[in-house]
Each structure stands twice: as structure tokens, then as C-alpha cells.
């Protein structure tokens, strides 16, 4: 299909597939003993996560996913029930203590993961799709289309993310839906920029030109020939972005612009804890949750970049060494 592909689309994204020996991004098999049972297990774990940090990230994320999925079974109490004494310290009946209204902090933290995680993933997927499509259009067609789309992107870039998200959320009114819209509107331009530059490079490649000479339409050229070159960096960016989406959502909730009470939310819990320094557990544990989950996504993102986007990894390695 491709003639002289300058940048091979990665072929190792398929978990379970045998490692491609010639792939520059592949760290190569570590030379495990040939016990077939162990080998199968190792291969099933996505190759791109087979770095120490990637592994740690994946484990933390897996724990969080399990906690979120089974939250109703794990949470010991109703997260909304104000049935305990106020500001009880961790230990005893409430393992992570209670908040100012006498609600169980542990139950609230667990249940909060059920709103935060899906919302963050959803908002990142949406902004990745929106940003990539707009970026691809801008990069492929160029000229006025490019100017219009990218100037809008610049406009968004001109503001600090959280400030613009705050303004949008404040204008739309508080609520999870509006917070998602706000984050979506501020986070698409980074995808548009990355996609645009990749598309602009690929657009002039010989194999794309050849395809056009064969009569491929713009859509076909973009989806069949250019897209595979764009997907990896966008996936890496998206994984790294989930962490910042969680942070932005927590920030909006902290400012009472996110999830509407009484639905538990990490950001709102931290905001409550700020005025209760002595009751450190109110803010500390939700903060720890945000820290671990953001860290997990960053580790996974880094590992994915190392495998899927070896060029960037190399550049990063060169500049840091």
C-alpha cells in the first residue's frame, strides 16, 4: 500500500501479537526463559507497559478501576448519609474519618472515583477526536481553513487552561455536564496542533502523493494513509492528558463549578478540607487519590510514548542526558 513510508505506522499496538523484531520502538524481548506458560502471560501484558513505571502505573490504574466498578460493594456506608459524629478522625468505624457534615470520607472517596474516572476519560476521548479531526482538516487543506482553525486554537491557547475552563463553567452554571463541556472546549487545541503538524509532513510524502495520483479522495487519503501516522502521538498525548483532565475537573469542583453537591467529588472534598486544617483527613485522602491516579496516567503515558513514539522518546532522551 505504501511506497517508501517515511514513518512506519506502529504495528505493535495489538496486544498479544508476537513482537515485531525489526520495529525500532520495540525494546526487544528481555530474553525470558522459554517456559511457555510464563511466556504467554508476559506477552499478554501490553508490551508498551513493560517498563517499571508503566507497570506501576498500570497496577495503580487497575486498582482504581476495580474500586470504581465495585464501589457500591466496597464503600462501607452511604456516602451521603450524615449519620456519624462530625470531624471524627480516621480509625474506628470510619477508617478515613468523617467530614464536617458527619459523612464517611472513605465511602465518599470511593464513590467519587465513579464520576471522576469515566468523566475524565470521556472528555479526553472527545477532545482527542475533535482536536484531531480539526487538526487534520487544517493540515491537509491548508490556506484559509488552516488559518481559521488554527487562529481559533491560538485564541484558546492564549488563556491559561484552568482560567478559561472556569469562565466557561461559570457561564454555563455548575454541573458535571458543563464541566465536561468546559474542559473539552479548552483541551482540543493541543490535539489539533499535533495532528496538523503531522498531517502537514505526511501530506507531501511520496506515498500520499502517489495515492492521490491514483485518484484517492481527500477523505480516503486522510483516513487510509495519513491517519496511521498520526494515531500514535495522539494516543500518547491523550493518555498523558487524562491526568490533567482529572486535575482540571478537581480544580473546577474545588471552586464549586464542577460536580453539584451532594454528589461526592475529590476537588470539592479538598475545598471543604481547606477551612478545616485540624481535620487534615478531609483534604488529605482525596488529594492522595488525585495524586495516585494522575501519576498512574502519567506513567502509562510515558511508557506508551517510549514504545509508540520512539522519535519523541529519543529526543527527550537526548535533551535530558
Amino acid at each position, binding site marked *: 500500500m505504501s511506497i517508501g513510508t517515511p514513518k512506519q505506522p506502529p504495528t505493535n499496538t495489538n496486544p498479544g501479537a508476537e513482537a515485531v523484531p525489526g520495529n525500532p520502538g520495540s525494546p526487544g524481548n528481555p530474553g525470558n526463559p522459554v517456559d511457555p506458560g510464563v511466556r504467554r502471560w508476559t506477552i499478554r501484558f501490553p508490551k508498551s507497559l513493560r517498563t517499571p513505571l508503566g507497570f506501576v502505573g498500570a497496577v495503580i490504574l487497575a486498582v482504581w478501576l476495580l474500586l470504581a466498578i465495585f464501589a457500591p460493594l466496597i464503600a462501607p456506608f452511604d456516602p451521603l448519609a450524615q449519620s456519624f459524629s462530625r*470531624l471524627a478522625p480516621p480509625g474506628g468505624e470510619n477508617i478515613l474519618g468523617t467530614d464536617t457534615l458527619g459523612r464517611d470520607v472513605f465511602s465518599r472517596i470511593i464513590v467519587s472515583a465513579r464520576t471522576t474516572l469515566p468523566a475524565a476519560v470521556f472528555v479526553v476521548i472527545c477532545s482527542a477526536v475533535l482536536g484531531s479531526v480539526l487538526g487534520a482538516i487544517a493540515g491537509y487543506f491548508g490556506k484559509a481553513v488552516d488559518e481559521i482553525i488554527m487562529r481559533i486554537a491560538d485564541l484558546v491557547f492564549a488563556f491559561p487552561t484552568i482560567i478559561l475552563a472556569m469562565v466557561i463553567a461559570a457561564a454555563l452554571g455548575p454541573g458535571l455536564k458543563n464541566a465536561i463541556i468546559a474542559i473539552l472546549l479548552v483541551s482540543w487545541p493541543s490535539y489539533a496542533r499535533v495532528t496538523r503538524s503531522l498531517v502537514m509532513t505526511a501530506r507531501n510524502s511520496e506515498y500520499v502523493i502517489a495515492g492521490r495520483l491514483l485518484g484517492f479522495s481527500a477523505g480516503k487519503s486522510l483516513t487510509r494513509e495519513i491517519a496511521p501516522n498520526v494515531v500514535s502521538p495522539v494516543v500518547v498525548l491523550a493518555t498523558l492528558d487524562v491526568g490533567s483532565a482529572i486535575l482540571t475537573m478537581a480544580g473546577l469542583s474545588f471552586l*464549586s463549578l464542577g460536580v453539584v453537591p*451532594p454528589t461526592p467529588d475529590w476537588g470539592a472534598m479538598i475545598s471543604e478540607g481547606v477551612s478545616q486544617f485540624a481535620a487534615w483527613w478531609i483534604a488529605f485522602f482525596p488529594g492522595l487519590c488525585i495524586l495516585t491516579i494522575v501519576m498512574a496516567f502519567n506513567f502509562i503515558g510515558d511508557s506508551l510514548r517510549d514504545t509508540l513514539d520512539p522519535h519523541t522518546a529519543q529526543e527527550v532522551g537526548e535533551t535530558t542526558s
Partner: protein
Amino acid sequence: MRRLARATVAICSTLALTLGLAACSGGDDDQAGGAGDTLVAETAFSLTTIDPHRQFEFTGSTIDNAVYQTALEFEDGDLTKPTDGLCSFEMSDGDKTMTLKLKQKDAKFSNGDPVTVDDIVFSFERLQGLKGNPSFFLDGVDVKKVDDETIELKSEKPNPALPYILPNSSIGIVNSKVVKENKGTTDEKDEAEQFLNENSQGSGPYQIDTYDPDSQVVLTANENYNGPAPKYKRIVLRNVSAETQLTDIQSGQAQVAYDLNSDQANSIDDSMAQKTSLPSTRSLYIFNNMDDKVSDITTNEDFRMAVTSAIDYEKILELSGDGAQRMAGLVPNEFNGAVPKDQAPERDLDKTKELLEKSGYDGEEIPFHYSSDQSVNGVDLAQLAETLQAQLKEAGINLALKPAPSATQLDGFRAGEQPMGIGTWGADFPDPSNYNVFVPGGSVADRVNWDKDASPEITKLAEAAEKADEDKRGDAYAKMYKSLSDTGVWIPLVQPVDTIVVGNSVKKYVSNADTSFDFAQAE
């Protein structure tokens, strides 16, 4: 080897720098911590001006209380009894005329000029003429100098609230001669605000040293004050958040913290600070809209009374902190005309159930509005709303919380568009007539579309209270406000508590509901 030497140098220089910084900050601590005759007080500023006739905010009033004297005062903070200040007073002509006689003839402004009747007249007229936020205090009052010792205040209608209004710090007496020299007038052309922000012209125990509305205001003792000289010659009022106030009080960097909530105050060890709880002059209540187009359920009296009996008031008291009080009406318990708090409703879920059935409420969600960023004397409105929602849910009433920043929430409330929510009212002056705005047709009642002719019975009681004699006034108002509560349009929730935390280096102090913490009497 060389690397080791380099590391040693780095460590030594870091240590030296740290020690140096520690030494410097130690020096600052002593100064900031109010060693000797300096007192550091901290509050989160709400401050735009300290021109007495323009200011209408908490911080401005705290400062002006220390800088300006007023014609009348509340002795020892008893808000039910106005007493003589710079002047003595007498009401006559059916409360239409007030005669003020200059009493403190030895009172002097900070530049040494004596306080005269002309200064008092100028101050009253300037307050009226500026058409600023506090100008309404003397609306409809005609100010006239009779002689060098006497002033006459004539009102068109009986004005029994006037003695309760005059002690307000917004009616502070300024040096008319100097203010006039600095473009001060008694109309809207006045340009003396900037001058008064930087140069106080009062006769109180303190005068302005520096004024920075963003960070701090410094006061120094007024050498010409005619009362006992204050022990603290310098007051530094700093703008810091409640969280910082907590750490500053604990570390001894500040002596007075105004904004700690009850939980924060209780977290401080008794060996570090003393806590004073003053009844707040603010009321927290639930409002219900009376317009069918806004909500067809809050207009139903059975539903409103069901809400009234569904609230767990004891829990709300607990949330509001030690010293918070129940309210049976909207008027704070310490004021004349307050409904005795033992008449306040109690939680009764059986009654709620019965009333809900009668009202035809079918479990629909009712939007419940509140300011998510507002805290009233340590009561966080967001937490209060969440508590109310949980309590009403137990009774089968479903609220959909609608938090918004206070500016947005107030806009909606003023437009009369909110079916239900939390409202707050801070007294402008400690008199029941200040709460007339809640009577049908009043300016706050308009916000829930409660029209003037909606309840002839209450209107009649309000008119009777307005005309009542001085000794029967309190009872008449209490009766009226009780009937107001019985409609459930306003459901009084709690009278919060004003907690002031004072560091133990201050051995003696006076704080009361009128002047709050009194700088001049602290020792």
C-alpha cells in the same frame, strides 16, 4: 575530591542563607507579633473605603469604630438601649423630633480642633448628600442646628428607630473644617473620599496611619482623644484568609482573628488564645417564592409548613458552632422586637407527612438556590444547603441543589426567579423596623413575589407595630414577626455566632455586639 569540596561549599552556603533568613524573619515576627504597644488583628478584608459616610462593609466599620466617635452609642454593646455618645438625646413630638445636645465638650479631633455642633451637622448632611450606600440611614430626616449646643433632627413620619441608627459607624463625626478644605461637600460633588482614606478626621481613640485596602491598614493612637489613652498605640489590621489567621494566632504573629469558624477556634489550644462568642447580628433563613409561575408548590402553605417541621434545627445549631441560637422570627434574639426563641418550631416528621399529603406534593425536585462561596459567621452556606437537603429528603421532600457564586445567585434572587433557597440578612441597625423589608410588599418580599395585598392581616400588624408607643413597640413587632414566620414564606434557620479569637498576650479586652473587639480597651 573536588566534588566533595564543592558539595561542602554548597551545603555551608545553604545553611548560612537559611540561618540568615531565619534571623531576619525572627526580627519580623517580633514586630508583626505585636511586641510592646502594637496589636496585630487579622481579617479577610471587605474594604473599599474608610470614608465614614461612604463605607458600608465589615472591615470599614471595624476601622471607623476606632477612628470616629458617634452622636449616640450602645453602652457595653447592649443593642436594646442606645445611650449618650458625643451628644445626649431626647425624642419628642410622637417620635418625629429628636433633640441632640452636645455632651462631650472636651472631645477633640486628631489635629486638636474641638468637636462642635457644626461638625455634627456637617457629618449628618454629608452622609445624606453623598447618596452612597449608608445614606438611607437618615432618609427623610431634616437636620437643623438650633444653637452652639443643640441640633434638631425632624422626621416626616414617626421615627422611633433613629436612636438605634445614630450609633452606626457610618454616621461618624468628622472635622468639618478640614474636610471642607479638602473638597468635602454635603452633596454628590464631594471629592474628599481619598483624603479621608489617608487622613482620618475623627475624634475617636485612633487615627489612620497608612491605608492599603488590599493588604493592611495601620492605626495609631489619637493623642487628643478625650477618653482613657489606649494601651496599644499602634493597631495593624491585616488582610489574610481564615486559614492563615489560624496559624498566625497559634504562632503568636497575630493577637486578634476575626474570621475563624467555630471548628477552627476550637482547634486552638487554650494556652494560646481565648475565644469570645458574640451573638451575630445576621439571620439565616429559607425563602419560598410566592409566584405560581416560578413554582406551584412553594406557593402552597401546607408545603411550606411541612418544610418548616421537617428541618432538624438542632443539627443546624451544631453545624453553626457553640453559641449559635435558634430563631423564631427573622429578628436576632438580642434586638428589641425579636420573637422569643422558645417559640421556634421543632422537627416533627409525622406533622410533615400529614402536611405533605394535604399539599399534594408528589416528590418533584425543587431547585434550591444558595451562594456556594459564602460563609456567614463561619456557617458555610454550601454545607448548610447539603444538610438541609439530606434532612428534607428524610421527610420525603426532594431538593435539587443549585449552587452559584454569590453575585450570580443574588441576581437570580433579586429578579424573583428562584423558587426556594437560603437567604441571609445582616442588620443595618439593631431595630425591628430594619426587618420591615420582609413584610409583604417590602423590598426583600418583592424578591419572592410576595405582594403588598397578599396578607392583609400581616400588613395590619405591621402598621400597628409602626405606630406603637415606645414601651409596646417590641411586643407589637414580635407579634408581627411571629405571624410572618407562621406563613412559612421565610423559615428562620439559625442566628450564627461571631467568634473572635484573641491571643493570650492580650490580658484584658472588651468585645461586644456593637463594636466587636474594642482596640482601645485592650490591654
